[in-house]
């Protein structure tokens, strides 16, 4: 059966080719069903493989499918090869499962768009690339998928390319990601330099034999790549702009799957990370800072999709925090629950926009609770899940992160405290949005208000399925009682390391329960505050904003990071290239010298010149004369 792993990425590739090449001859219905079916076929294949995998002993759960040699030179060789182990199984199931629902939803959402076929072919191409990323058996296939998803992200952010801002956002995403990839690539070179291979097993099993600085450097370089793809400080700036893409794209690529690739990468190479405390700390701290920063920005944003975008950045920060304290299974657990509830919220937001003629400003919404009931109820579930309310999915995964941030040998009280604060902020900003959008008076434009309608079934059914997953998805891993998820993944993470190093260094079961209670209280406080401010006393937010005007402006303008980058990097760079390198150095200096010597040449040639293109004759003549002289010398000389 392992010989069929290739089928998983193959189906979406096929869908891409058919819809991409023949899409203009097909009806929307055919295109949509075909695109979705291909992802469903991948999902089904993955389910079958998953069950086969569970038949094996935990430590033997690995299928490898080698297709052919991609490139080989000297001692370097990279195969096109896939690996299906517990980690890739979880990733593949999330990608194809959530991906399938989003494909189905898109049939309704993209209805009538002139780029319908193009949209589905890109979405399939994305799924293909994402599957390569998580199935690759070596760093190079992972990188192939990594760049592939980046390409699709670029194509889909700029899907409505006629809007120059959208096209700009696409470029920004690609280029910022390339900065990350620069680090990733150098990491790959270094891995090959020290390990002589790019195969995961070869590299990871030998990681312990390398000096620590090598491992630290490699891990940090890979992490640079992760900060690009997973939108962490300092490369997160592209993700909020990426909301220019159609909403299903935001849900699939910029929330549930692609942006989690960095987390996956660190977990995949965890055997290296655990060898470097420095690298782990950097990951944890960057994750925590990003989570905090993004959460504060989300509080002031007025755009429904931007709130969700910053929320995604923040939640990804959580995942990195988990990975950074060595809790890899927990990071993946949160990755999965986040995929459920964030995809849900994005799609629900899309449903809101669908109802309001693509309005995204939450100040122009309100009172939608009863008008679009299904959307509201599913959004509500998502809100509880992300806030970490028991028993929704987010509670289990987020709480586990906070606990590990404290109890792990790499953790600390500060990690826990800040993490808990962020949990409160999260509950607050999310419910601020929910209350503003669905409760209170309607602030919808009159023209728009006439057309408010619930979305069709093809959109609401995926919402309901995701809401169900967001409700019960956390139950697969209940610490101490039912840690199935962790037990399933642990063989992957513990394969090359000593599990004893990961026993909680401090903390007891009692403390764990206390912490869980604290985070529940914090979450409820956040929701309660939001309710007070945005439902009961609506004048409060403005008052608070004007009382801390400086801070509010800073947050509202996203700490001016975009402006800063533009001013200190982008503009000077273009200017120097234009004014100095091109206009001065290339044209004045180098060409000046060339043209100067050309003038001298010309005056020499002028002697022989007979017509306006005399140079040719001179050249031909000199060639002939030279050749004759040469022959003469050689033969008679």
């Amino acid at each position: 059966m392992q010989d069929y792993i290739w089928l998983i990425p193959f189906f979406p590739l096929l869908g891409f080719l058919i819809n991409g090449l023949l899409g203009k001859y097909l009806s929307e219905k055919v295109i949509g069903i075909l695109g979705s079916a291909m992802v469903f076929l991948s999902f089904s294949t993955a389910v079958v493989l998953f069950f086969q995998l569970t038949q094996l002993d935990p430590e033997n759960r690995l299928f490898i499918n080698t297709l052919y040699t991609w490139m080989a030179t000297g001692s370097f060789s990279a195969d096109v090869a896939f690996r299906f182990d517990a980690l890739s199984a979880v990733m593949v199931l999330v990608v194809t499962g959530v991906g399938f629902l989003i494909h189905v939803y898109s049939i309704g959402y993209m209805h009538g768009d002139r780029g319908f076929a193009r949209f589905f072919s890109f979405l399939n191409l994305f799924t293909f690339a994402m599957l390569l990323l998580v199935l690759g058996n070596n760093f190079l296939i992972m990188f192939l998928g990594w760049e592939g998803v980046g390409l699709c992200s670029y194509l889909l952010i700029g899907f409505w390319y006629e809007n120059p801002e959208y096209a700009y956002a696409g470029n920004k995403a690609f280029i910022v990601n390339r900065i990350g990839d620069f680090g990733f690539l150098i990491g790959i070179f270094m891995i090959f330099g020290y390990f002589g291979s790019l195969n995961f097993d070869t590299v990871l099993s030998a990681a312990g034999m390398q000096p620590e600085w090598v491992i630290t450097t490699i891990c940090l370089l890979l992490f640079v790549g992760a900060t690009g793809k997973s939108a962490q400080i300092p490369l997160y700036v592209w993700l909020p702009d990426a909301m220019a893409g159609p909403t299903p794209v935001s849900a699939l690529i910029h929330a549930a799957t692609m942006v989690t690739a960095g987390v996956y990468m660190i977990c995949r190479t965890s055997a290296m990370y655990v060898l470097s405390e420095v690298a782990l700390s950097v990951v944890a701290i960057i994750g925590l800072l990003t989570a905090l920063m993004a959460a504060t920005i989300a509080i002031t944003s007025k755009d429904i999709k931007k709130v969700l975008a910053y929320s995604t950045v923040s939640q990804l920060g959580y995942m990195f925090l988990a990975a950074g304290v060595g809790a890899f299974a927990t990071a993946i657990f949160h990755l999965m629950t986040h995929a459920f509830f964030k995809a849900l919220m994005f799609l629900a937001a899309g449903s809101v926009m669908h109802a309001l003629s693509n309005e995204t400003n939450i100040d122009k919404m309100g009172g939608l609770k009863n008008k679009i009931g299904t959307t509201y109820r599913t959004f509500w579930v998502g809100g509880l899940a992300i806030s970490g309310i028991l028993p929704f999915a987010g509670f289990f995964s987020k709480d586990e992160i906070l606990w590990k941030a404290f109890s792990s040998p790499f953790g600390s009280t500060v990690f826990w405290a800040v993490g808990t604060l962020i949990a409160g902020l999260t509950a607050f900003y999310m419910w601020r949005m929910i209350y503003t959008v669905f409760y209170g008076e309607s602030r919808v434009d009159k023209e728009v208000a006439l057309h408010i309608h619930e979305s069709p079934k093809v959109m609401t059914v995926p919402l309901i399925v995701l809401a169900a997953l967001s409700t019960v998805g956390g139950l697969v891993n209940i610490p101490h009682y039912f840690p199935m998820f962790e037990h399933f993944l642990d063989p992957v993470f513990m394969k090359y390391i000593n599990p004893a190093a990961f026993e909680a260094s401090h903390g007891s079961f009692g403390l764990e329960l206390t912490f869980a209670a604290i985070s529940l209280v914090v979450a409820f406080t956040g929701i309660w505050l939001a309710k007070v401010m945005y439902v009961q006393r609506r004048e409060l937010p403005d008052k608070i904003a004007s009382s801390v005007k400086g801070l509010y402006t800073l947050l509202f303008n996203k700490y001016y990071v975009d402006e800063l980058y533009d001013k200190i990097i982008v503009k000077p760079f273009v200017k120097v290239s234009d004014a100095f390198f091109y206009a001065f150095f290339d044209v004045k200096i180098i060409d000046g010298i060339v043209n100067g010597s050309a003038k001298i040449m010309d005056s020499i040639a002028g002697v022989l010149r007979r017509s306006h293109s005399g140079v040719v004759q001179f050249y031909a003549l000199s060639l002939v004369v030279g050749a004759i002289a040469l022959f003469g010398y050689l033969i008679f000389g």
Partner: protein
Amino acid sequence: MTDLPLLSITIFLPAIGALLLLFLKDSMEQLQKMLALIVSALTFIVSLPLYFSFNSNTAAFQFEENYTWISAIGANYHVGIDGISLLMIMLTTFLGPLVVLSAWNAVHKSLKGFLISLLVLETGMLGVFASLDIFLFYIFWEAMLIPMYFVIGIWGGQRRVYAAVKFFIYTMVGSLLMMVAILFAYFYVGEQTGTYSFDYIHLRDFLMPVEIQKWLFLAFGLSFAIKVPMFPFHTWLPDAHVEAPTAGSVILAGVLLKMGTYGFLRFCLPMFPNATFIFAPLISILAVIGILYGAWVAMVQKDVKKLVAYSSVSHLGFVMLGIFSFTHQGMQGGLIQMVNHGLSTGALFLIVGMIYERRHTRMIEDFGGLARQIPIFTTFFMIVTLSSIGLPGLNGFVGEFLVLLGTFQTNVTLAVLATSGVIFAAVYMLWMFKRVMFGPITREENKRLTDLSKREVAVLVPIVVFIVWIGVYAQPFLGKMEKSVDSLLAQLKAKQTALVQPGNEIIGGGE
């Protein structure tokens, strides 16, 4: 293997076609085009057995033909190919018919002369890649420049004379130095061995003293460096490209530039190995400067064609860096990058040409929003752009990755600097693409654009096929060159140690 002199047939078939064209009346344009197309297509077909029956398990020259030519000076007609020249030959014959097809409606004066120039050019280029006699090589090298000069100077744009003269000056400086160096090597080796011969293998296998190697390396190297073009000898390229007609640009970028990098591999490295090691740091640094500088300058260009021209400086920098890393990955990566650049930049020039034929402008600001109007064009342009950026899964990545991987093993700093080039490549290409293709249509003329014709699609499809093929399955191509690169590296190392050991006879002979 077959008894037919396949290599010679391949080399001279285009020239025979050119001769036949001479007999056609000026007015028979359709017939002239058909003839040129058939001849160049036939050349490609004839060259296919070279690829398919090429033995990848040996570094020896294959399809060798060696006849006495001018016995008085020891010049032979000696041709043959190994893994280094094979792909160059294939690239040349592959692009041949595509170039003819691309010029179908583009030439409005003296079509016959144009087609003859193209065909003669092809013979010249094939000869350069196949020659194993340095005298023969030089003849082909020079012979090829004349039709190229005409193509730019006669069928070029408004500033064609300036561009052609610039091309000529640069090239002539290099050629003259190389000629002197060839003669010196010929006499020197002749004197030392008693055999006066221009035979490549004869000259290559004699190890000259380091001092002499240095001078000869510089003379050959300058000629090749101009052709590559390496920074700072690159300024002829943007002008030549901008003024040359599309077909000229495609040949220039696709094949001509590779003669420079090929020259280094074929002559400079094996003939002057010690000098090679001495100059390698300098060349590597220039290569990295070229990668970055080319990218930065490309970024600020207002003319699409000039942008693509500067991107060539950047891409060829990767090739040079790879060659001078003296690693398997770097060299094979450099070689495959030569092919890649021929495909992707060739295709970019074709695409720019197609839009120029419609709009008679290449200025970025004259476009914008074309994607909606001409979707087929957009698709091809996108794929080729991504190939040029080095997106994994397309050909460009394989070359760049291997070059950088190889370089990293020998010089971390240069590799890191060069790797940053992948960021800038995305910047200048995608920025240009956005300004040309995306956004709203702002100019009336652009609303009347027609999408690609069947002929144009037929020109681009074969290139895209290889762009994807090399990208997803590079091994067949890398496998063809492996043994030759192995052997070249082994020779380099052997010769380096040979000269270092004291009391070695070869040194004795040299001093």
